[in-house]
């Protein structure tokens, strides 16, 4: 067997696995989205683009889309805004602080949502004791922000670690040169460090916005999309359509829409990143 063929054999299982569990299913979801398919009725009928026509007029879809977009924008912005000072702190600090901060990232989202649900609990939650009168998860206005807080708590450490890696890659000479030229710490940070950190910040924003847009776990555990669908994101709506209503046709249509949104977000960030080079 020649070397080229051996190489292909080594790579084939991974390629086949990725194709089988990711590429083919995405295509299959697109195919399913063209059908009327109710699982319990064993019904599957080709209906062309009818599901997509329904999607365009589906108010619940548009509301879930705007909820998801709001969640993503606010969460990612907050995580970057808090992650940057945290990265600076970690850059100076020791390993124990880094391990402490890493812990929320490692905790399962289902657990972190339960943990915060307990803090938010309207009868005897800690936050309720500190600031009585606000029922965090029951009011449509606060529930989504409570979910954002859970996301910020869990993923700011990840953002900080990405930015920390960027900080560590900045050559000491550049910072020393700035100091020699008479720049104070604030001036050095804003005129030297921050511009050099731009690629890391953009990369963190790319990873985080793709991840935040598919938010499911935190909201499913905190509110299941309630109260009154105020926290229903696209993944939650698609999940309910698929698993609660058993509507695999329209559920797949929603899944395809989510996939398209994620591709669009990814490509626009890549364009911004590409322009940086």
């Amino acid at each position, binding site marked *: 067997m020649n070397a080229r063929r*051996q190489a*292909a054999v080594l790579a084939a299982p991974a390629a086949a696995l990725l194709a089988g569990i990711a590429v083919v299913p995405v295509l299959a979801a697109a195919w399913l989205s063209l059908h009327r398919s109710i699982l319990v009725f064993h019904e599957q009928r080709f209906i062309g683009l009818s599901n997509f026509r329904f999607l365009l007029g589906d108010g619940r879809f548009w509301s879930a889309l705007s909820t998801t977009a709001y969640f993503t924008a606010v969460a990612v912005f907050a995580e970057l805004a808090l992650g940057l000072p945290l990265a600076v702190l970690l850059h100076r600090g020791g390993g124990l602080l880094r391990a402490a901060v890493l812990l929320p990232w490692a905790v399962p989202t289902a657990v972190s949502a339960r943990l915060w649900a307990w803090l938010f609990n309207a009868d005897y939650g800690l936050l309720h004791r500190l600031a009585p009168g606000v029922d965090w998860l029951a009011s449509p206005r606060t529930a989504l922000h409570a979910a954002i807080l859970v996301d910020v708590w869990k993923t700011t450490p990840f953002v900080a670690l990405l930015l920390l890696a960027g900080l560590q890659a900045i050559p000491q000479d550049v910072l020393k040169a700035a100091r020699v030229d008479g720049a104070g710490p604030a001036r050095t940070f804003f005129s030297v460090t921050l511009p050099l950190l731009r690629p890391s910040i953009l990369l963190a924003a790319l990873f985080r916005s793709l991840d935040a847009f*598919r938010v499911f776990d935190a909201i499913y555990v905190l509110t299941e999309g309630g109260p009154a669908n105020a926290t229903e994101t696209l993944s939650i709506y698609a999940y309910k359509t698929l698993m609660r209503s058993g509507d695999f046709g329209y559920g797949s249509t929603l899944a395809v829409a989510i996939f398209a949104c994620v591709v669009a977000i990814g490509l626009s960030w890549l364009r911004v990143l590409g322009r940086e080079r």
Partner: protein
Amino acid sequence: MRRAPAVAAVLLFFLGPLAWQALTSVWPEAELTRPLPSRLTLASYAGLGVPFARAVLNSILVAAGTTALCLSVGAAAGFAVARLEFPGRRFLLGGALAISMFPPIATVSPLYLALRSVGLRDTLAGLVLPYATFALPLTLWLLASFFRQLPDELYRAARVDGCTPWQAFVRVFLPLSWPALATSAILVFIFSWNELLYALTFISTPAKRTVPVAIALFAGEHVEPWGQIAAASTVAVLPLVVLTLLFQRRIVAGLTAGAVKE
């Protein structure tokens, strides 16, 4: 920025909720309305019983299976990508990265039908395959970049000594790659331990639930059993505390490996 207050605020925000959860888990259920417990008890842990122990075992099995599958498949492909020439080499790495960004909900419906048709729906083995969507790209990237950092001479020397590419991989490169394998194993284990959506969708028998599903669906007869939820959460977090404390450097390096090189 003054350091001490900032560190204190950071620790309070990130560790406070976890500490409160741990305290709740040893707080007598009947005293939850009081500002602080008058005594501590392990009753909530005892109340978890066999069902939750099953969930822990299920999670360990799924995470171990995912780790074994992805490490064996990913190490071979990572070596091929890093050291060998074959058609579609660049495409494999880029494709894997793109796949790791796929929203899982986008593939849930066809995976559900596929697993059902081969009899793997509602089985733990049926979770291992979908888990590879996030675990395999990670393993592939970490191992490919590790194998790239090894000197070129190593591969050439192995070939001169008569090794086929396969033998060079198994006898020379694989034994050297344990640091990257360990990093991948830790990260894959954590991600599998934490996964909710697939496990929630594909598993219907309560005895086959994984830890995140058990915690997400925890419900009492009349009131939420907050003490038991806190105890279950503490058990779920414990292995992660051990892993982060022991392998903090490795985890951070693995998580940021791609970001630094860009």
